[in-house]
């Protein structure tokens, strides 16, 4: 089975004030199969949104994709002509953004914002696209859909607007849907409804979904597979069960530890990961998480670990790390940490030890 989306060694660069470049996304590789849900989790500035924007070739200026390949059904997205790119966006792939308040055009009626995609991509007539828009609005649970077509976004609540955005995104039955923090700007009660809706729409259309969130709870309940990003890199990836049940990277562990659990007493201070991620252009020589890591060792400060297959038996049993494991392919847990999987250091040594 060929993957729906194959991303390899994606690098997004931003120029820094001191004439250098900063890899905001650094050699990110992952795959999404048809109908699969992949979650990207990480804190602000970890590069998760940029990764998704790079896939759609929507990296905001002055950022550039300097390296890497994005294959969509085997086709190289980075080499699409502007015309091809435009027809591909919206029909094959779609995006739901974080802030439904500002991602709908405040000066255009909701109906027009839905029908224009249908007209451009599916070639529907005015009347046909209108009928279809009403169906779409009903599907995403907007009551009185027909009369609401002529409303402006200002007449909708945040949750309703995100429903409209989902209707727009799913209008042309895309094969890949990227949802960039779709629930972050919403009330907790509305969050669950919007996620359910996303879930239903994706199941119905067998759409592959990339869900981006800083909320591991949201991600783990929704996704088949999870990528954990830190400082522009994927530090661990695996199935939702592996990441939640058997986290290997200290960052993933720390993220999980900061979630409150039902049944346990609530601590006076919520647990958090101390410190902050490295700022643009100030990535340390070794592991970029080292300064905040609970299990840091000397090697971490000098050698940058690479992503290697993790041993799901605990770190003590790491001598038998096989070098024959292939990188891409079926989901397996990968981790970039020498403490959990010392092989990560062994592989990258020499290459980045400078």
């Amino acid at each position: 089975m060929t993957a729906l989306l194959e991303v390899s060694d994606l690098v997004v660069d931003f120029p820094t004030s001191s004439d250098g470049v900063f890899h905001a996304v650094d050699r990110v590789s992952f795959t999404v199969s048809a109908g699969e849900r992949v979650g990207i989790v990480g804190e602000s500035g970890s590069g998760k949104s940029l990764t998704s924007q790079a896939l759609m070739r929507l990296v905001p200026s002055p950022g550039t994709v300097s390296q890497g390949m994005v294959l969509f059904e085997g086709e190289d997205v980075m080499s699409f002509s502007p015309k091809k790119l435009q027809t591909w966006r919206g029909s094959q792939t779609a995006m739901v953004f974080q802030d439904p308040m500002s991602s709908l055009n405040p000066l255009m009626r909701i109906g027009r914002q839905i029908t224009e995609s249908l007209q451009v991509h599916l070639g529907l007539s005015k009347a046909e696209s209108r009928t279809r828009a009403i169906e779409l609005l009903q599907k995403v649970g907007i009551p009185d859909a027909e009369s609401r077509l002529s409303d402006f976004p200002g007449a909708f609540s945040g949750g309703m607007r995100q429903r409209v955005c989902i209707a727009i995104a799913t209008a042309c039955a895309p094969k890949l849907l990227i949802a960039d923090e779709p629930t972050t700007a919403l009330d907790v009660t509305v969050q669950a409804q919007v996620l359910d809706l996303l879930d239903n729409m994706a199941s119905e259309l067998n759409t592959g979904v990339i869900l981006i969130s800083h909320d591991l709870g949201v991600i783990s309940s929704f996704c088949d597979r999870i990528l954990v990003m830190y400082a522009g890199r994927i530090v661990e990836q695996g199935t939702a069960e592996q990441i939640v049940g058997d986290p290997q990277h200290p960052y993933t562990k720390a993220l999980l530890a900061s979630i409150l659990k039902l049944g346990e007493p609530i601590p006076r201070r919520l647990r958090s990961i101390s410190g902050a991620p490295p700022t643009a252009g100030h990535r340390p020589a070794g592991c970029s998480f080292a300064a905040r890591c609970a299990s840091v060792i000397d090697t971490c400060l000098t050698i940058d670990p690479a992503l290697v297959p993790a041993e799901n038996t605990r770190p003590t049993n790491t001598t038998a790390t096989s070098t024959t494991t292939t990188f891409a392919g079926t989901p397996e847990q990968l981790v970039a940490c020498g403490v959990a999987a010392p092989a990560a250091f062994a592989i990258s040594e020499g290459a980045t030890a400078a």
Partner: protein
Amino acid sequence: MFWWILRRLGQMAIVLFGVVSLAFLLVYAVPADPATTLAGPNASAATIASIHKQLGLDEPLWQQYLGFIGRLLTGDLGTSYVLRETPVFGRIAAALPTTLLVAVGGIIWQILLGVPAGIYAAYRRGSWVDRVITFISLIGLSAPPFWLGLLLIYYFAFTWGLFPLNGLGDPVIWFLVLPTFTLGAGGGAWYARMTRTNMIETLDSPFVRMARAKGMPEHVILWRHSFRHIAIPLITMIGLDFGYFLGGVVIVETVFGLNGIGRLAFDAISNLDTPMIVGTVLFAAIFIVVVNFIVDLLYSVIDPRVRLNS
């Protein structure tokens, strides 16, 4: 909506009353006597006194003011001190078409020169076209209208004979090209800069990114999604400029020998012709107030977020 309009009309009346009163009183604050200006420096005291009596200037100020306001309410702006035979209203009405033509032409040049250039510069931000447009607009902003007007007359009218030298004739559009361009050039440069800034801001906004992610063609993103957003500040500027131009554009009218409201006002001030000064000020104020009212109405047409509440 109805109450909003009614309230606005009330406000407009108050503003106009204030403007007229201020203009009337300010003329009296000037330490000069219209009678002396009329009769010349060698006139005898008796002549001055008789002119005072003739013009009603011997009455106390409050009486003159009340008389003026009373006549104004009946639509009578009085008679010019200098041109005794013509009422002020008639003079202004006669000058209005010229001013209107020049103002409309100036606005058209501003839009034609500024808006497409600004949109293109924003769309191709950072390119050499953007830099060229920004540079030319700097020249346009820096060129004084009297200099630009004389330059245009010298080359386009005098040397090459492409356009008439001055005044108005037939076909009128031929006579209007140079004066309206002179009037609109600086504004066009200003519009280009403003349009560029607003368009850049709009093109960076989340809904434009969403439109891109939706796979909308570039022309749809520019015109359907973005243009309305730059139309609001644009209409504000056009409204302000239009009101301002209708009040008379002294420099352009002088350079091109046009008898518009600007020259009327200028001559009136030179001669201390009180009724004419107040009349032209009143008309300028009316234009600005009315155009502002129309602009506010247009906001609510363009932007559904604007509600006309009282």
